[in-house]
Every structure is written in structure tokens, then in C-alpha cells.
């Protein structure tokens, strides 16, 4: 288990233009504290690229390779092979993409890289819609959520389909390790990052990363909502290891309303 007070003070992503209360940058910042400086980030046009690598403002203190939206995991495979040829051992290659870049347009490349068994970690920071382009729905948008492409009107009631079971899809590739996490539970999240680092072969993490402008809530509620999502059973903390899927039980679930009420994207459901 990772101990929060033992995490290094040094920041490996610093000075980004992320919004106040951005769950995504928090997910990346925390993960890098465990991953450490011997890490290469491979990422894609998304909020993350937009707030960290607009020349000359470069916020990463580890190498960062940006690639096209569909291709994060394919570029990861290239970086892994290239570093191997260069004899650079002990460097972790980490693919980072939002939910759109993972579960939708990036799915084919990710499936290819998982199936090839390349040694890498893929972190999906899941804010449940295409936030960088202005809050359009993705395959990871939850049932009922209002987005700019699932608006609420006399007919429209928000997103009509449940969230894609990405963990199930990833697990079906029989990879050594996959898990969901929430930035609201950093010790759990970072322990999973640590486990992902220790396995040989691909590891997948999907971390819930609330988005104040996208979800429509006050920016000081990010961590609280990331916890409420788990406490209300909306975001199961699950792990796939040694071919078995385990889900953390919630002893006394809180009412769903507590999670939905602060968010404008669900306002129409509560009436």
C-alpha cells in the first residue's frame, strides 16, 4: 500500500493551465509521484495536451510524446520497442488519454497493444465526456447525463445508453492487471498505480476524474464528488488480477441523490 505521507514532494507535472478543480490533472500529478522520473508519457490531443504542452509552456518534467487521437497505445508500442533497442531498461512507458481517447477513438489501438502484450501502463482519466471539445458525450458518459450532444429538451432526456464496460473489455484481453480508481481515494488509486508498475505486460487503470465545467459543479467539490461517486455505487472500485475480477463492496451506500444533486448534468433527473 502506498503511504500518502511518504510520497515525494517533487512535482513531475507543474505549471499547467488546467481549470481550477480539474480532476484530470490531479490524476496525472498523483500518478507521477508514484511512477517517478524514469517515466515516459505518451498522450494525445485532449485537455491534458492542451493544458501541458502548448509550446513553449511545457509542464512535464518527464519526456512526453504526443500523438494523434486514435493512436496513443500504438505510439506506446513504438516507444517501448525503441527504448528496448536503445538499451534503456527500467523506464516505464505510460499511455495517458481521456475517456474519448480510450474507450472510443483510441479503443482499436489499445486493443492491439494489450493483445500484443507490450510492457506498458495505460491510464484513462475518465471525466465521462469529450471535455476538451466542449462536453460532447462519449462511450463513457453515464446514463441520463446531459452533454452538448445529449441535450435535455421536450424529447431529449440526456444520455440514453449506459456507460461502456471498459474494464470488462480490457479484462477480456487477459492482461495481467486492470483496475478502476477514483482521485477521491488517492491511497487506493496510487496503490493500484504501484501494482500496475510491478506487473510484466500491459496494465490498465481507469480513474474517475471529475470535471467542474463539464459536469457543472463548484470547483471545490471535485474530490468530494469523486468520493461520492464511489459511496453511492456509481463508480465501483474494481480490480482484475490473475484472471479474477473483484469489486470493493460499499457497506452503507449513500443515496444517489447526494452524488447527482450538485451536478448540473443531472439536474433534469431530479426535477
Amino acid at each position, binding site marked *: 500500500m502506498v503511504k500518502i505521507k511518504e510520497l515525494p514532494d517533487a512535482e513531475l507535472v507543474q505549471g499547467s493551465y488546467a481549470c481550477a478543480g480539474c480532476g484530470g490533472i490531479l490524476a496525472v500529478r498523483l500518478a507521477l509521484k508514484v511512477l517517478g522520473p524514469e517515466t515516459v508519457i505518451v498522450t494525445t490531443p485532449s485537455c491534458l495536451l492542451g493544458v501541458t504542452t502548448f509550446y513553449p509552456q511545457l509542464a512535464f518534467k518527464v519526456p512526453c510524446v*504526443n500523438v494523434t487521437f486514435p493512436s496513443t497505445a500504438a505510439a506506446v508500442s*513504438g516507444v517501448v*520497442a525503441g527504448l528496448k533497442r536503445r538499451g534503456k531498461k527500467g523506464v516505464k512507458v505510460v499511455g495517458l488519454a481521456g475517456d474519448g481517447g480510450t474507450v472510443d477513438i483510441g479503443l482499436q489501438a489499445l486493443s492491439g497493444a494489450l493483445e*500484443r502484450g507490450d510492457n506498458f501502463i495505460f491510464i484513462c482519466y475518465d471525466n465521462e465526456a469529450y471535455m476538451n471539445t466542449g462536453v460532447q458525450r462519449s462511450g463513457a458518459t453515464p446514463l441520463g447525463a446531459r452533454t452538448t450532444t445529449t441535450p435535455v429538451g421536450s424529447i431529449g432526456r440526456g444520455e440514453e445508453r449506459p456507460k461502456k464496460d471498459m474494464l470488462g473489455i480490457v479484462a477480456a484481453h487477459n492482461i495481467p492487471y486492470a483496475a478502476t480508481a477514483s482521485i477521491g481515494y488517492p491511497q487506493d488509486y496510487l496503490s493500484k498505480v504501484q501494482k500496475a508498475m510491478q506487473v510484466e505486460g500491459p496494465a490498465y487503470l481507469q480513474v474517475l476524474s471529475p470535471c467542474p465545467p463539464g459536469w457543472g459543479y463548484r470547483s471545490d467539490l471535485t474530490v468530494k464528488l469523486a468520493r461520492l461517486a464511489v459511496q453511492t455505487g456509481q463508480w465501483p472500485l474494481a480490480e482484475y488480477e490473475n484472471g479474477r475480477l473483484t469489486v470493493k463492496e460499499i457497506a452503507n451506500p449513500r443515496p444517489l441523490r447526494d452524488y447527482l444533486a450538485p451536478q448540473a448534468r443531472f439536474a433534469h433527473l431530479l426535477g
Partner: protein
Amino acid sequence: MRAYLNGNEAVAAAVKLARTEVVAAYPITPQSTIVEKIAEYIAAGSMEADYIRVESEHAALAACYGAAVTGTRVFTATSSQGLAYMFEMLHYVSGCRVPMVMAVANRGLAAPWTIWADHQDAVACRDTGWIQLYVETAQEALDTCLQAYKIAAHPEVLTPVMVCLDGYVLSHTEEIVDVPDQEAVDRFLPSYRPEYSVDTQRPYVFGVGAGPDLYSAFKYYQQQAILKAKEVIKEVDREFQAHFQRSYGGLVDLYYCHDASVVLVVMGATAGTAREVVEYLRRQGEAVGLLRLRSFRPFPVEDLRAALSRARVVAVLDRDCSFGYEGVLATEVKAALADLPAQPQVAGFIGGLGGRDISQEELAGIFRHCLEAVRRQDRGEELVVSGGWQK
């Protein structure tokens, strides 16, 4: 060593001789036997490289990009739909100034579905920022791949190179090829270790974002680099000549152009047929010549003007079409010659689409059609020459 190789085998031999370190590829006809041969080399232990078996062409180029930014020599190959599928990545690789070599076994684009040769696939990628070199023989395919690694990695170029060979006509047709020794290739082509690569001790960002002011600057430098490649392509071809006693004219390959009143401009293997037609017509006393465009990008404006300024008619044979206008090469040749004091008439012909054979008779027909226009002018008429389409 002399070997009986087709164009694809010649490319694979070059990739091995270049000591390519990472290959990522997805199969497509007629390219596939290139990457099959490379897989065989690796499986047999005669080539030391990582082979990434990707799930698409888009991923192939993304994986090559990832491997190249770590500072390794990479290769991929594709054709037609595969190249079209790579379109997005093509810009990323050239814009990020990542040197790499890709063989394109040229093939028409669907629909109608086709697996046979024309140049539509690569010509449609004209503006992606890649250098495009078109070859005439399997020997030239091998030699140009070796040259291409050197051109791409030149510190003032840093631009990826497509080596284009006509599907089937070159990719699957055997000829005697002189395969250079490994030691000789090593002397010509040193290993690739760029100044900037993925390194945790020096953490760079590859593929940055840029605002409107800086974006223009990045693109300006990209244009300067590919223009610089004109000189470098010639220089590398001369250097290749010194090492291997073979050269290809650099940007353009001229055949009887110096005193020709009619010159045919082509790219690719059609030049082989055209040479025979030129010789045949020359024996009949006709002043005809051939210009084979080897470098489509960068476009050799100066070389074309120098070679064609004395011609009266320039016939351009395109194996592609810019729909709604004309053959792409015809437009480009016209533009290159536009402000010459005595501007030759340029007539565009479109042929050889989707693998359609271009016969000696048809090429002779183009020459005779243009020669006739020249004769009419000699009789005092205005010089007008129409183009045509091989229907």
C-alpha cells in the same frame, strides 16, 4: 552480390542493409511481401530488429513515430487504402520532423475497388510534408531506400521519405539486382542517433501544441527543410555514386532531353517503356526525349526549367487525377514552366489508372500527336496541342 529480386524483395533487402531497428507494419496488397520478407529475416536471425505487428496502418505509422522519437531507425510500408488510412499520421510525423522511410507500393484507390498500380495514393498525399521519391526499377528501389535514410536524417532536412514503387510492375516483377555488401552500406550509411530523443535525463516534449503565431513559424521551418532536401537528394545521389557506382540523376532523370522538341514527363516504371519508345523514334530522326521525375516532393522546379526550356511541347503522363481539374503532375509542370521566356506548350495525358497497361504504341502515339503540333507550327500555324485520357 547479384540476385534475382522483385521490387518488394529489393526494398526488404535495403531495410535490412540499413540496419533498421524497428519495423511496424500492417499487410496490404501489393506491399505485403515487403514486410513478410522482413519478418522472415528477423525470424531467421539475419536481421536484428523489433517487429511490431500492429492492428492497422494508422497504428503502424503511430508506432513508427513512437519508435523514431526514441532515436531508432524505423521502417514501414503500405499501399493505397492503407496510405489513405495513415493520412492523419503523415502530417504528425513530418510536422514533428521525425525522419523515417516508408515504401509505398503504389496502387489505385477505391472505388471502384482495385489492387493494381497507379499513383493516386501517393499523389493524394502530396501536401503531407513527406519527401516523395518515385523509382523505375527494383535496383533503384533498393538504392533509393538506402539514400532515403540518409536524406531523411540529414540535420537540415529531418523530414520523412516515401519511396514509391509501382504496384506489381515493380513490386512483383523480378530483375537482376546488385545487392551491396553490408560493409559497403555501413560506410555509406552510419547508424542513426539523433540529437533529440526520448531520454528521461533530458525530458523533451515531442509533438507540441502551438498557437497561431508559433504555428506559422514551425511550418515555415518545415518548408525550408523540405526545400533544402532538393540539394541534399542530389548530394546523397552523388555520394551513392561514389560508393556504389550507380546514380539516378538526383531529382530528375533526363533521357535525350538536351535537343528534344517534344519531351515526355513521367514518374515510375512507365519510364522503362518510354525509353524504348524514345530510342525507336530517335532512330526515325524524331527529336524526342524523356524526363523521369524522381522527386515529386520537393518539386524540382529549377531542374525542370533547365531541362525543358528548349522543348516546344512537353507531354505529361499522369497516373492520377485531380478530379475536377486534370492530372496533378500536368498542373505542376505547367506552373513550373509558366514564366519561361519561351514557354513550351504543356499537354496533359492521363493513363495507367488502376493497373491499365501503357503500351509502347500508346506512348509513341503521344509523341507523334505532339510532334504533329510542332510540324503545324513550323508551317506557320499557332502551336496548340490537346491532351488526352486513356479511356
